């Protein structure tokens, strides 16, 4: 994929839910110089498409999400969501963070009800909808528990319900399951696929786990070592619905895996050579 030079005017492109065009992100550092987290990054996600973004550790994958979400504006280039340049937080956007973002002082039910409450729903209405979503993520019976009484996997379910209750048309996920053990993670991946399959949401799923990336996605985007640039876009032609623990044993899965890993290996080696030490 080449990087098109950004045109002056913004043409309303039809199908793409998310589009990054030659996007660069620089952060000021303590010593006064700029640190470039992403350079000339290009990405396009159609409505209803599930895209996984993989790359070496610390390459700036998460930066792409914060630019799409409007939490951190791009320094250069264009970020379009539903054809419109991102200036604030776009409508219909959901974002699941890597860290725990559930409110420790709220019960499971009130955590899930937070979104509708913020958007003006009455307490009863918000709680009714939250009750549905708590059940959908398999936490029925835990409505009145506080987060500290739940396991890590259960807290992730709360976070998932909290994000999905707003019915986002754009869903950003930043290594949401990385802190979980393997079995819990696979459960969560299946749950995510189940809940997503009923919607037409565009998903950008950042991860360093290739199996996870391929098992979930329609398209895997490989990023280079920092500063992140789009290196390769690899389609995953596996049938849906998928079961994560089964699909990873299929021959076609392994083919894609090899392709992605071949593309990623170089970048991982570069990162390793730089002494980062921590590798995806």
């Amino acid at each position, binding site marked *: 994929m080449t990087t098109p030079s950004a045109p002056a005017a913004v043409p309303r492109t039809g199908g793409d839910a998310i589009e990054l065009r030659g996007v660069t992100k620089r952060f000021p550092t303590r010593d006064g110089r700029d640190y470039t987290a992403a350079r000339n990054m290009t990405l396009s996600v159609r409505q209803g498409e599930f895209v996984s973004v993989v790359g070496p550790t610390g390459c700036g994958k998460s930066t792409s999400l914060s630019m799409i*979400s409007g*939490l951190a504006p791009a320094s250069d280039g264009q970020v379009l969501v539903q054809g419109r340049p991102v200036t604030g937080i776009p409508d219909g956007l959901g*974002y699941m*963070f890597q860290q725990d973002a559930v409110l*420790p002082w*709220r019960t499971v039910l009130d955590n899930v009800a*937070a979104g509708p409450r*913020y958007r003006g729903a009455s307490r009863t209405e918000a709680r009714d909808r939250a009750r549905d979503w708590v059940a959908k993520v398999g936490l029925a019976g835990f409505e009145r528990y506080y987060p*500290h009484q739940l396991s890590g996997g259960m807290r992730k379910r709360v976070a998932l319900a909290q994000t999905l209750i707003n019915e986002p048309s754009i869903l950003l996920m930043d290594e949401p399951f990385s802190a979980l053990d393997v079995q819990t993670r696979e459960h969560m991946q299946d749950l995510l696929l189940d809940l997503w399959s009923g919607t037409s949401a565009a998903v950008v799923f950042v991860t360093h786990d290739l199996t996870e990336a391929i098992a979930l996605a329609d398209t895997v985007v490989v990023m280079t070592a920092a500063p992140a640039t789009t290196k390769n876009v690899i389609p995953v032609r596996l049938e849906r619905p998928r079961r994560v623990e089964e699909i990873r044993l299929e021959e076609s899965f392994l083919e894609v895996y090899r392709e992605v890993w071949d593309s990623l290996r170089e970048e991982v080696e570069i990162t390793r050579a730089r002494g980062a030490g921590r590798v995806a």
Partner: protein
Amino acid sequence: MTKDAVRGAKEEHAVPAQVETPATEARPVADDSARPRRRALRAPKITATRVLLVVLWLGSWELSASTFLDPFYYSKPSAIWGRIVDWFTTGTAFGTIWEQIAVTLEEAVAGFVIGSLAGVVLGVLLGRGRFLAEVCAPFIKAANAIPRIVLASLFVIWFGLGMSSKVATAVVLVFFAVFFNAFQGAREVDKTLIDNARILGAGPRQILTTIVLPSATSWILASLHVAFGFALIGAIVGEYTGADKGLGLLINHAQGTFDSAGIYAGMIIITVMALLAEWLLTLLERRLLAWRPPSAATEARI
């Protein structure tokens, strides 16, 4: 840098028993059974030892004051008890003891409420507003460095011998205790929580009420324990400086008449008041922080 400047001014302030709980593992929902049983065996032992210590202490005091210590200077438990009984039955030189207690309590509570409200509002405001914090930092540092007890004398001149001068003293003492904790609490709010709330659709007001305030609550509540003590000190020092009623006046009067038993008796009454307030605040804290995991906070509280 300015953040540190304001923070640097904070020294002897209360820290919440537990600011956050990064719980990565599942915690058992049900209590394990071994611990309560051992505690049940330990509790009477602890109580017995405490009673023994008090008996030993008071007994040796009484004994030495009856033999070689001069009770005129050091008083003795029986004399102090007699003074307390005397105050509650026949009254004090300035009216009934209940009147004195009511006056001091009213001053302390008023000072506590006004001081903590101001502390919370300003603390949260400065904690969230970078510009404001940077502007105010040197002034707050300077104000905190003033020996505030001295202000009591000034307040007597400004507000007279009545209640308001004591309330004012209590307010200045309470304010700083609460302010620094509220400031810190508002600063330490997890950025991910705020980002998450913004994504979920929260506006600035909703972020303040549903994220910042709840997350600063444990800090603020921790400071309230210290703050009520300060409010009592403020009220009593104020009465000491000049008043026509109150426990501070009572103690000052006892000092003037070389009545050491009276000083002790006043001290005991104030201590009981402080303990009652502490108990009420603990109840409030338990209610407001019911969401916190039961851990160190409930283990050995002092």
